[in-house]
């Protein structure tokens, strides 16, 4: 018996062409499109982490902006105080910073469930926001902190390497592949996590906490570890996001950003593994399109969310697979 649950072959048939397409994409489309997709993939990592709590453990956090923001601010502090611009150091620092905060917040939050969990995570994330907002001599206040283009793979790949490469080119090619590799690894690791005995225990807790406890699952302990992993994933996303954006501001710590992470996940469908990924990428296009075409982009997003909740609660992936199942049965 294989301890690491291998994905079923049918799934690989879906995934392989997608990965292939993602690999050749930079040579097919404009750099702008590639950078846009990088944002989507990064948000997808955050959504994957978030969904370990919502979809697999049954805890709705309205404070995941805290971990995304800590990832981003962790990187900005490394640049500001240590003068290091190596991407690997960024990732380590970002994950470390967000995991530390998740360790503290999680310790306080996982005793509660349902609405109290949501409100507590929200309140704690707002503490971080107000600190970032007010301690401007450390965090730059609303101006934020700038993060220069990093060097990748221990300094082997830098912007100066290619002749006449500008920043956009670097982001659209080298950095895109960097993000893509980390994205694929993150997805694979998350797949292993949710299909491991640990992941099964989380699902048992979600479905019936009392029963899980009687079977011998240490509910508090499992929830805490899930919280840590979730925070680390979201922090990783924040660390990847900040060089792409070039700047981190308190906006990514506000609770409405947490709301967006929830939005991604529900848009894709939180009861499925791939839902949050699809949701994050689609949301990113949707938001970019709405912001580019109208000043009333919030209205567009709000209407989409309301329609989604009322009409398609299973999200894009959930609804599609249900339709596909019905077609297969009919055939």
């Amino acid at each position, binding site marked *: 018996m294989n301890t690491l649950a291998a994905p079923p072959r049918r799934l690989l048939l879906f995934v392989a062409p997608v990965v292939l397409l993602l690999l050749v994409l930079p040579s097919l489309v404009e750099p702008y499109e590639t950078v846009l997709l990088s944002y989507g993939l990064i948000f997808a990592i955050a959504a994957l982490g978030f969904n370990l709590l*919502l979809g697999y453990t049954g805890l*709705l956090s*309205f404070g995941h902006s805290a971990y995304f923001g800590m990832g981003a601010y962790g990187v900005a502090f490394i640049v500001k105080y240590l003068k290091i611009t190596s991407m690997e150091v960024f990732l380590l620092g970002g994950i470390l910073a967000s995991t530390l905060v998740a360790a503290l917040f999680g310790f*306080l939050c996982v*005793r*509660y469930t*349902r*609405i*109290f969990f*949501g*409100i*507590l995570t*929200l*309140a*704690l994330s*707002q*503490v971080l926001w*107000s*600190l970032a*907002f*007010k*301690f401007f001599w450390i965090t730059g206040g609303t101006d934020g902190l700038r993060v220069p283009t990093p060097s990748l793979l221990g300094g082997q790949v830098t912007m100066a390497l290619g002749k006449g490469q500008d920043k956009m080119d670097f982001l659209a090619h080298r950095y895109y592949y960097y993000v893509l590799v980390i994205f694929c690894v993150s997805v694979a690791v998350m797949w292993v996590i949710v299909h491991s005995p640990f992941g099964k225990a989380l699902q048992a807790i979600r479905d019936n906490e009392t029963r899980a406890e009687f079977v011998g699952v240490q509910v508090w302990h499992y929830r805490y570890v899930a919280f840590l992993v979730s925070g680390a994933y979201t922090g990783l996303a924040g660390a990847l996001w900040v060089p792409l954006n070039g700047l981190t501001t308190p906006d990514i710590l506000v*609770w*409405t950003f947490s*709301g967006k992470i*929830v*939005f991604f996940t*529900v848009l894709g469908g939180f009861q499925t593994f791939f839902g949050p990924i699809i949701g994050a990428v689609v949301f990113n296009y949707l938001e970019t399109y709405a912001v580019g075409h109208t*000043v*009333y*982009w*919030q*209205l567009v*997003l*709000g*209407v*989409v*969310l*309301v329609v*989604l*909740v*009322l009409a398609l*609660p299973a999200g894009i992936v959930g609804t599609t697979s249900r339709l596909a199942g019905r077609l297969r049965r009919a055939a």
Partner: protein
Amino acid sequence: MDTFVIHLLNALLYASVLFLIAGGLSLIYGVMRIVNLAHGNIYAVGAYTTAWAVGRVLGGAPTVVLYALLPIGAVAAAALGAVLEPTLLRPLYKRAEEYQLLITFGLLLILEDLLRFIWGPYPLSVSALYENPGSLSIGESIYPTYNLAVIVVGGIAAAALWAFVYKTKFGVILRATSQNKRMASALGVNVNRVYVQAFTLGCFMAGLAGAIIVPQQGAVLGMGVDALILAFVVVVIGGLGSLEGALLGALMVGVVREFGIAFFPEIELAVLYLMAAIVLLIRPAGLFGRA
């Protein structure tokens, strides 16, 4: 001493407005078990409507008429609530509470942009109403009379709400529905009607808060989201669903905020959120809440 009195009055001013907002939020949660993330925007609707209505007729109308126009924001907010509950929220009561939070989050986004669409991106102000009553002297300092009026309105609203919930037949029905919806329904209470009434009342309070504070602060985009977060702190401290809790929470937040801005402005907001987090840790249901 004078400065202390003025700080205290300002704290009461914050507390009055916060109580109206948070009391509405808490009432809605207490009866319907829904945390309305769009509640702050309802408050903003009240502020904008009043600012617009008063601004329209400002030229020439006697001041008394203008003050009589103030509550129009509350009426508009209540009407909005009466429309929203049956259309958007009612289909969701049987679903997981995640969806209820999400739909009110969607509503928050929609209302935020509707305000921008209707009244444009610039702040509206009706400062004439604020300046007209002049000011009182307290010792050697002066204090705007309008602020005192807001404090009085807040106090009256709290008393009226208490009387309404604890001394009227409707209040009994409201509390019964809040405690056990199915039992109330079995005893012949029209739960759907109680829900829409409770939601409307909650929105009315938020709208009233917006209406009475707009002469002092003006109406700006984003005011709803800011107010919501403070209202959250209030209800978390006081206990979700408890009106006494909302009153106590509003007073605590008002005092901490006012003295925080005066003495430790850098961490004033952080202290508020930490206060909420600490209360949640010690008493998850809040000081007056029932778990």
